[in-house]
């Protein structure tokens, strides 16, 4: 074995085996429990991380045996299952209400019933919201931490340029149409826009149909009722704004991220999205706070406002010590600021000191009284322009909230995306035929 080729060959083989072996080695802390927790979506600004670092230091001071490691995280269906299977999810992360039921039924979330009981605030939750994390046996699989209602986002600057009063946002769908037309004519921008891609087209169609009293499924989620008057009216509305008024701009391939981007760039007058959107718009899309406006979605014919939210959860694979540490973090980081004055003030101060949004309108996950009281605690730190959101703040508690469709939510939304796109890109799209087909497909999903 003296030939150089043999030496090189052995070295190469050894290097390969060694590098493969290195892939499987993991680190461990010196006597501390390492806890990997979700922080922000990729792209968040430095100030967000500064605020998080402050909170991390506060937590570690209180619990010296826990080492918090912030991990960039964004809820994405596509990568979730693979991350879960590969064990690369953070130990604490958040998922939307829509998906929580499916995840817990699949055994993809840790049971935290005992932990919530031990913390003693099970009774404080809004029971409708708590239902989203409960299985058929009454076990709980997460901490509802934030809820929102859909609202009408609008650009105050475009309102002004179009000669509209930004302090008097529209209150009926007819007014929205009228304002949209005016914005388009005066500014050349899209007066009104709606999401169409990656299941968000279905989501927003559902929300706007609900505001017209049209719901996609029977209450128990066993029958599809997609071809209803509310959905038809919403699609007809899109059609009229697009083809008769030409007030929806020229981009009809928008999802949550791209519509926010267009809005932040000043290209969209109005669109519907979550009431807590302001934080993300400013933090991740560099929106100028001065142009932001938020009001409630107009209600017609027994309409309801679609709500949503997210839940702090743990993967089922955690060992007992890590799980206990994770629960401490969830309680400290997400829950105490809703329940406890000192925690709420400390949280608001940390966020406000780093220029992060404090006071974005949300729906209470606990009872309304606790929520309203918590707002008075953090009042000195509120830095979002709540006067520009007055329409929403004043009107939301008069609206009746409704949850997203119960059965196969994302798949039903996916069925509706192409319909919204068809109406916006084909003047002659046959709404009735499209809905009849979607209804049939949805029923097959629900029944199958």
């Amino acid at each position: 074995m003296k030939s150089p080729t043999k030496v090189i060959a052995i070295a190469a083989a050894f290097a390969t085996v060694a590098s493969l072996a290195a892939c499987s080695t993991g680190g461990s802390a010196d006597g501390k429990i390492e806890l990997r927790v979700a922080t922000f979506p990729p792209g968040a600004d430095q100030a967000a991380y500064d605020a998080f670092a402050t909170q991390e230091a506060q937590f570690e001071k209180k619990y010296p045996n826990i080492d918090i490691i912030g991990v960039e995280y964004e809820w994405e269906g596509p990568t979730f299952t693979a991350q879960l299977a590969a064990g690369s999810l953070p130990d604490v992360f958040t998922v939307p209400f829509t998906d929580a039921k499916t995840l817990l039924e699949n055994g993809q979330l840790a049971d935290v019933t005992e932990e919530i009981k031990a913390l003693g605030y099970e009774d404080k939750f809004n029971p409708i919201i708590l239902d989203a994390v409960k299985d058929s046996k009454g076990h709980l699989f997460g901490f509802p931490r934030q809820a929102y209602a859909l609202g009408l986002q609008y650009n105050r600057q475009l309102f002004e340029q179009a000669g509209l009063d930004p302090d008097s946002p529209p209150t009926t769908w007819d007014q929205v149409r009228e304002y949209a037309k005016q914005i388009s004519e005066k500014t050349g921008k899209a007066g009104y826009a709606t999401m169409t891609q990656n299941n968000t087209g279905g989501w927003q169609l559902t929300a706007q149909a609900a505001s017209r009293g049209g719901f996609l499924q029977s209450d128990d989620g066993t029958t599809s009722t997609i071809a209803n008057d509310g959905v038809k009216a919403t699609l007809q509305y899109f059609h009229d704004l697009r083809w008769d008024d030409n007030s929806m701009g020229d981009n009809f391939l928008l999802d949550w991220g791209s519509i926010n981007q267009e809005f932040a760039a000043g290209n969209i007058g109005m669109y519907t999205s979550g009431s807590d959107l302001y934080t993300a718009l400013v933090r991740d899309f560099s929106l100028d706070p001065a142009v932001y406006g938020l009001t409630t979605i107009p209600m017609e014919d027994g309409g309801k406002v679609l709500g949503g939210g997210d839940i702090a959860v743990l993967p089922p694979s955690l060992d007992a010590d890590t799980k206990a540490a994770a629960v401490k973090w969830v309680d400290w980081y997400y829950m105490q600021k809703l329940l406890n004055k000192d925690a709420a003030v400390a949280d608001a101060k940390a966020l406000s000191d780093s220029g992060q949004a404090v006071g974005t309108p949300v729906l209470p996950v606990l009872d309304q009284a606790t929520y309203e009281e918590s707002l008075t605690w953090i009042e000195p730190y509120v830095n979002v322009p709540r006067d520009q959101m007055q329409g929403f703040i004043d009107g939301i508690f008069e609206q009746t909230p409704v949850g997203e469709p119960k059965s196969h939510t994302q798949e039903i939304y996916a069925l509706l995306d192409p319909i919204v796109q068809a109406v916006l890109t084909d003047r002659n799209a046959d709404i009735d035929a499209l809905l009849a087909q979607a209804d049939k497909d949805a029923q097959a999903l629900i029944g199958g």
Partner: protein
Amino acid sequence: MTVLDERRAVEQRLRPRQTGPRRRDRSIRGWVRRGGLVTLLFALPMILVFTVYSWWPILQSIWMSFQKTNLITYQFVGLDNFVNVLSDPLLGRAVVNTLYFALLALVFGFPLPILMAVLMSEVKRMKGLYSALAYLPVIVPPVVAVLLWKFFYSASPTGVFNTILGVLGIPPQPWIQDATQAMPSLVLEATWAAAGGSIIIYLAALLAVPPELYDAAEVDGASIWRKIWHVTLPQLRGVIFVMLILQVIATAQVFLEPYLFTGGGPNNATVTVLLLIYRYAFENSLGGKYGEATALSVMLALFLAAASFLYFKATEKWSTD
């Protein structure tokens, strides 16, 4: 040593072979002596890498196509996934869209690099500059290129392409915002992005064409087009056949363009087979349709393997003559 001695010595060395093969030493030591171990050690890194990152996942995918799984629990379901895929109404649409993309790419995208390479080979000065310019789009990362083109394709009258059309007196086009125009728009970008690589390959192949053939054709009084038709193209056909099958395989798996430009829209006008596989696997991953995704992948792979085999069989003689 005389010449005769030397010859005898050579014959002596050759004799064992001439008298028939010696019994092969089948022991491990024999194998090692013949250099088997060194060969294996040299190949080991690649074998390991391929096993871990290619062959093992391929085998797992095939196995997964017979299972219902959310990557945590697995259940054998026989051919259910294949049945589900074949009964999906969107499959037909995806196949038609993919064929449409492949056809457009074949009709417009395939001859273009050949033509450009032939023309460029005729250029006498600054050849390198033209090659570099032709290759430039290949250097742009594909995702960046698509996002740039998405911006160019803005349907607004002030969009880049619409402004250019406006100068020519053509009204603004909806491009990717319209079900009819979306696919040709995707092909246009894909052709732009891929042509450079093909041009370089054709240019290299053109260098191998013996100049005597052109001289002979010239003596016979052939025009430039006759030279291209009767000399260049026949000489290139081996390369053209390989490029053609590579393009067919690539277009059958088109994903990046529809995924980034349109997400399969408007109204499923650009859903391709690979995008459908992606949707199965990832769009509603909460329940996990990984079984259906792998089933369709296996079907696509089998189809492409069969098509490639038939293609090579059919053109074997033609391309190697």
